[in-house]
Each structure stands twice: as structure tokens, then as C-alpha cells.
């Protein structure tokens, strides 16, 4: 499944684009749509695709699914999940806490407005969160008479911006989500554009293959069954687990034997990405990471963080969460901070809200980390104070 993060300035047409994709890929509940279509027709309104997204939002709330921040759809045999985050704070919270790990980001820019402050911020966030594949969708082309000239100008500016940040866009697509140009269907209004539609770009995108040999299992909880067995539950992020094999338990590095696998009934082996229950030879606790290979265990890390509502200063103490792990921590040193408006680095002892900065953090206990390209879940962190997420980031 390809996970897509949709990011863009408010009013640049994110909801309309999501609605259009779902509509044109026939991924909407037909009955409900019929009533909305009739109401639009009778009231002389154009079908508003942003409304469709609202409708799905309602449905998700009703169902109270754990995947509340995802919109699923499939097209031509491939499955997709759009990560729906209303604002950059929710976006970084979801991304950093591991709720949503996007494989690709679609950066939406309205043709009639061009690059805005949020665009810069979003681009910097994508870089921070290690998203390598970025598709730039220049939306609302209908409002600029489908002008190639305007598209090319925006493309150049965005390209320069992304390069400054260190990102590379795999495609620039002129679209009109409202009219459906180049989203799923090729535009008749922009014959000058010979590239792929947005959905074609997404269909062609290959996911980076992880090291299939490396087993990484993050422990979420320990439960006692009715029969008195202790079951360790968690998420298998990578590799396979076979019944009878011996794994390392990090951060201690001790050996543990897998006596049984339950998913939900007993099976002999299981592959990523699953959430099995394991019966182990040794007692372990929540936050432990099981692996068949060496993992990086650290008590001090360098990370890039994005401050949300409060400033992060040298000496500040937090609770650090990294997927299922958590430990107390202290900001030892702020290395630098990036001004989101100018994208200039500055030397400072604090990272203000909505700024991105690099810092050194000391932990009270050892934790397991990975590079963002290998196991992103073990590279993303959040800093929490009094139950509130203060900052999110990535281990460098």
C-alpha cells in the first residue's frame, strides 16, 4: 500500500483534490454521493469535491476506526492510503508519532497564488521527516486559463525552493482538481502538458525495499492469556519471525527465544507488517525492540526537531517517545535553528514554535534508533511535556 501525504496551504485545494481522486477512481459510497449530486444539481451548485471529503470524514468519525487519519482507495489493482492531516501541526504529530508514515508527498500549490509561507514550511517538514518522493501538483490551473507560462514560472520557483531545502520533486503536474484535469483523466485544456496524470505518477511509484532479512519487532504490551501464558504484543516492522528462533532484545541485547506466535491463533512464522502476539522465553517490557541483527542503541542523539506550540530551550526536560519506546530526556544543546520564512540557519539556544532546529538530546535510559531510510518508525521522535506533544522530529 502506498501512503500519500497531501500537503498544501489552506485553500489551495487539498480537500477538493482528495475528493476528485476518490470520485474519479470510483471510490465513494455511491448512495450517499447520489443524494449529494442531486442536491447540487437542484440548487444550481457545481459538485463540490471538498464536501465529499467532509462526508468521508463523518463516516470515519461514525465508525471510529483506528485509521481515522487515513482515506483508503484502490485503483488499477494498487492500494493507496491518503494521510489526511488538517494542518501542519497535526501532520507532524501524525508523522512523527508513527501514526502515519508517508511514502510520497503531494505538495499542492494553487496556480493563482503560487508559493506561500505554508508551502515553504511544508517543504521543510517533508525534508525533516525524510520523505524522499515529492510530487508537486500545481492546482487551480482553471483559474489562470490553463496558462503554461504561469505553470512554468511556478515550477521554476518551487524547484528552486525544494533544491534549497534539499528535496527533489519527481514530477510537476498542472492540475485542476475542481474540473478533474490531469488528476485521474488527462486534461483536454492543457494539451501542452505531455507528462503523466497525478494518479499515473502514483501508480508508477515503486516503494523502497527494506532489508527483508532484518527482523525488527517493537513491543507494545504484555498480556496474560486465560491459560496463564504471557503474550508479548507489538508490531513487526521488518523481516520475519519464526517459532523457535532466538532474537536479541534491545536495548539490553539479551537473547530471547520465540516459543510461539499467535496471529490470532498459533502459527509457525509471520512477516512484516503484522501485529502478532509472541510467547517468549524471557520476561521483557514495553518498548523493547527484538531483532535478529545488531541495532543502534543510544543514550544521546542528535536530532532535527520541529517545535509546535512551545519553545524548546537548552536544559528543557521532556519525555521522549519513539514508536513504542519512551524515556525521560533533556535538551543538552541546540546546534542551530532554521527560520521557516527565510530558510536561513541561525545560531541560537532555543527553537521557537514553528521553527525547525537541530539539537543534542540526552536520555535517561538507552533507546533503539534507526536511520529514517531503514526503519523510519525508529527514527521519528516526539518530545512530550505534561501529556502534550511539544515537538516532533527525526534522529539524524
Amino acid at each position, binding site marked *: 500500500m502506498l501512503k500519500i501525504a497531501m500537503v498544501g496551504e489552506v485553500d489551495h485545494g487539498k480537500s477538493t483534490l482528495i475528493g476528485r481522486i476518490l470520485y474519479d477512481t470510483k471510490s465513494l459510497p455511491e448512495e*450517499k454521493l*447520489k*443524494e*449529494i449530486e*442531486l*442536491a*447540487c444539481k*437542484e*440548487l444550481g*451548485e457545481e459538485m*463540490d469535491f471538498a*464536501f*465529499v471529503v*467532509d*462526508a468521508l470524514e*463523518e463516516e470515519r468519525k461514525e465508525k471510529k476506526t483506528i485509521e481515522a487519519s487515513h482515506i483508503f482507495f484502490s485503483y488499477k489493482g494498487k492500494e493507496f492510503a491518503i494521510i489526511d492531516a488538517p494542518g501542519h501541526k497535526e501532520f507532524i504529530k501524525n508523522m512523527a508519532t508513527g501514526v502515519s508514515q508517508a511514502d510520497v508527498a503531494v505538495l499542492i500549490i494553487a496556480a493563482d497564488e503560487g508559493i506561500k509561507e505554508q508551502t515553504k514550511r511544508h517543504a521543510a517538514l517533508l525534508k525533516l521527516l525524510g520523505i524522499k518522493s515529492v510530487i508537486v501538483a500545481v492546482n487551480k490551473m482553471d483559474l489562470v486559463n490553463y496558462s503554461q507560462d504561469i505553470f512554468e514560472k511556478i515550477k521554476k520557483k518551487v524547484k528552486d525552493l525544494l533544491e534549497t531545502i534539499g528535496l527533489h520533486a519527481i514530477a510537476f503536474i498542472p492540475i485542476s482538481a475542481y474540473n478533474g484535469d490531469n488528476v485521474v483523466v488527462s486534461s483536454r485544456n492543457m494539451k501542452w502538458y505531455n507528462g503523466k496524470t497525478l494518479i499515473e505518477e502514483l501508480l508508477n511509484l515503486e516503494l523502497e525495499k527494506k532489508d527483508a532479512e532484518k527482523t525488527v519487532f517493537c513491543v507494545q504490551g504484555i498480556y496474560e492469556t486465560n491459560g496463564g501464558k504471557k503474550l508479548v504484543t507489538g508490531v513487526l516492522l521488518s523481516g520475519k519471525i519464526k517459532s523457535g528462533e532466538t532474537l536479541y532484545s534491545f536495548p539490553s541485547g539479551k537473547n530471547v527465544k520465540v516459543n510461539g506466535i499467535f496471529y490470532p491463533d498459533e502459527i509457525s512464522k509471520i512477516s512484516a507488517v503484522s501485529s502478532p502476539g509472541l510467547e517468549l522465553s524471557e520476561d521483557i517490557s514495553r518498548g523493547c525492540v527484538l531483532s535478529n541483527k545488531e541495532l543502534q542503541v543510544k543514550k544521546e542523539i542528535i536530532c532535527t526537531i520541529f517545535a509546535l506550540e512551545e519553545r524548546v530551550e537548552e536544559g528543557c526536560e521532556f519525555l521522549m517517545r519513539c514508536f513504542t519506546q519512551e524515556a525521560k530526556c533533556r535538551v543538552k544543546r541546540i546546534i542551530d535553528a532554521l527560520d521557516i520564512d527565510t530558510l536561513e540557519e541561525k545560531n541560537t539556544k532555543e527553537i521557537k514554535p514553528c521553527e525547525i532546529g537541530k539539537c543534542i538530546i540526552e536520555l535517561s535510559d538507552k533507546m533503539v534508533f534507526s536511520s529514517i531510510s531503514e526503519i523510519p518508525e525508529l527514527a521519528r521522535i516526539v518530545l512530550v511535556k505534561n501529556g502534550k506533544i511539544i515537538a516532533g522530529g527525526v534522529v539524524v
Partner: protein
Amino acid sequence: MIVILGYDGLEYNYVVEFKCKELMQESFGKTDISMFTEPRTVVIWSSFLTGRNTEKLALKDLWNFRVKPEETFFSKFKKWYAIDVPGFTHISEIHAKEREVMKKVFEGEASVEEYDKLIFENHKKVKEMFFEALEKDYDILMSYFSLADSIGHVSFGLKIKMKLIYRELEKIAKKTKEVAKKVFIISDHGMKAVGRFGDHSNYGFWSFSENVDLGTPKVIELRKFIESLA
């Protein structure tokens, strides 16, 4: 010109949730309809017009009950016009047909689509009459729109559909404000979701184009306020 937009079934909570600025206007709130045994459309509208509780009289023959102009706040104005106001100038055949098809929807004998089409058709007729009247020189003009209530009864639980309906009511209010000096918006009652359907709630909605502090007025108290605008 003073214009009163009577939006049947307009729900306070949806107005706020959907951020309907044109409906909220400068000041807005809930109305108190607790003096009635049930939130009945004809009773509440005729009570609003007359400033007295008409329940006992109206219940004798609900859909044929009509108050006289001299009993209403319209008597304080020289040139007035009231379009389709229940318990006063309502167009019986329109509403009788709507009630009949609604009953069929609940009994599974008519589709929601069929019902919606009828409601939208009637809404268009009333809207046309209203915009025509808006061009004339009245001191006070009142028009009743049953759209939110009629669609709400079968679809109040489908928030997205209701959002479209509220957007339509906002458009009417916006266009009205381009012409009228003062605009008062009032609903007889709000609605609450019962699955996908909707039932009357026990409060109404009011808003005014100017800053006033009406609090949560009893619907019968609003006659004085309307007369004070004369």
C-alpha cells in the same frame, strides 16, 4: 425594507458548526419555545407573528389555522407582504403534497430522491416569489422557507447534505442583505438527528443584521422587537 427570513427547522448547532456567517449575522442565539407542549410548525410561526401562544386554538385544525393580519406585527407597518408563512399565508397545496410524500418515504413507498426533487421544486417556487417581492417597495417582507426542515426530516443525519442546504439558505440571506436594511432570521425550531432522519428540537434560532442583545428570547416576545423596528 425590513426582511424576515423564516427558515423552518434551522438548527443552531449546525449554523455554528458549518460556520454560516450569513446566517449568524451580527448577533444570534437560540429562541425559547418551551411554552409549547410540542415544537409544532404552525403553532410556533403564528405565535411569533401574534406575540401570544396560539397552541390551543391552532390545534383544533392545525393546517387550516390562520391568524388575521390585524393580530400580527404586520399591522404596525404600512406596506407588508408575507410569503407562505405557516398559520398565516401558507400555500396549503404545496405543504400537503410534501407531507404526503414524506409519509410515503417513511413507509418505504417513495424514494428519498423522489421526495428531495419535490422539495427542491417547491423551494425554487418560493424563492422566485421572494426575490420578486424583494424588488418591490415594502416596509416589511417576510418569507418562509421550509427547505431545512423538509430535507432535514429525511436527511438531517447526513451532515454533508445538510451543509449544502445551509449553504443555499446562506445564499438567500446574502442576496437579501444586498437589498434590505435590516434582516431578521428566525427558525421555529431546530432539529436533532435520529439515525439519518431528523426530528424537531426544543429550541429555535434567531439572528439579526445589527448588534442587539436579545439573549434567549421566548418566541412570543419577538413580536415587540419586530415592531420596534417599524
